């Protein structure tokens, strides 16, 4: 079956601009996660959705970052007033329920964001 997909695969923007990154999770997965990965580092948790609601957004670095999942499937990560330090690969993952530590996350290929 189809895995997690993310669009665009690459995004280049200028400092100060607004960007949206999209994630299509595996069909039927209720839990969705966003991570950010800088070069040479492991993924860093940003936000976790259970259905339509953000169950934990404690990883968002500041109020320029926001994510939505209005219908409990597709999610959009929104970054306002981008800064050069926002440059990274943004990963999305989904899992069946997120209601257990045994719930496996399936990752998308990521969106590489470059802020000039």
């Amino acid at each position, binding site marked *: 079956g189809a895995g997690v997909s993310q669009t665009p695969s690459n995004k280049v923007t200028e400092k100060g601009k607004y960007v949206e990154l999209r994630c299509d999770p595996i069909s039927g997965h209720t839990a969705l*996660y966003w991570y950010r990965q800088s070069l040479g580092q492991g*993924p860093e*948790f940003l*936000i976790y959705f259970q259905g339509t609601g953000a169950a934990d957004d404690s990883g968002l670095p500041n109020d320029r970052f926001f994510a939505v999942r209005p219908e409990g499937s597709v999610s959009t990560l929104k970054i306002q007033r981008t800064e050069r330090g926002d440059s990274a690969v943004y990963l999305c*993952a989904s899992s069946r329920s997120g209601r257990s*530590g*045994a719930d*496996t996350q399936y990752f998308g290929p990521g969106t590489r964001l470059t802020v000039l």
Partner: protein
Amino acid sequence: LAKTTQPISMDSYEGQEVNITCSHNNIATNDYITWYQQFPSQGPRFIIQGYKTKVTNEVASLFIPADRKSSTLSLPRVSLSDTAVYYCLVGDPWGGSARQLTFGSGTQLTVLP
């Protein structure tokens, strides 16, 4: 938070067994241990998961001692295509904080011919 510690890098030769150990001294009762593999320009890929003792699947084994303060990923007879970064992840997003779901820096495994 169940912080994890892994070796930064390991080298091996084709056909050898590779064991990568992860320390997680503060693991909580409901936490599971999951290992992921990541190739350049790809998202992490699930390898194996366990709670205690030993788990084996078609690609790897996971050994977890009784105190669960560490775990060892065992890759039998590695090939060049196993060259990747390996992460252990410890947490329970539902019972605890999803922020626990932060990967460490991982272990860069390089398989040599």
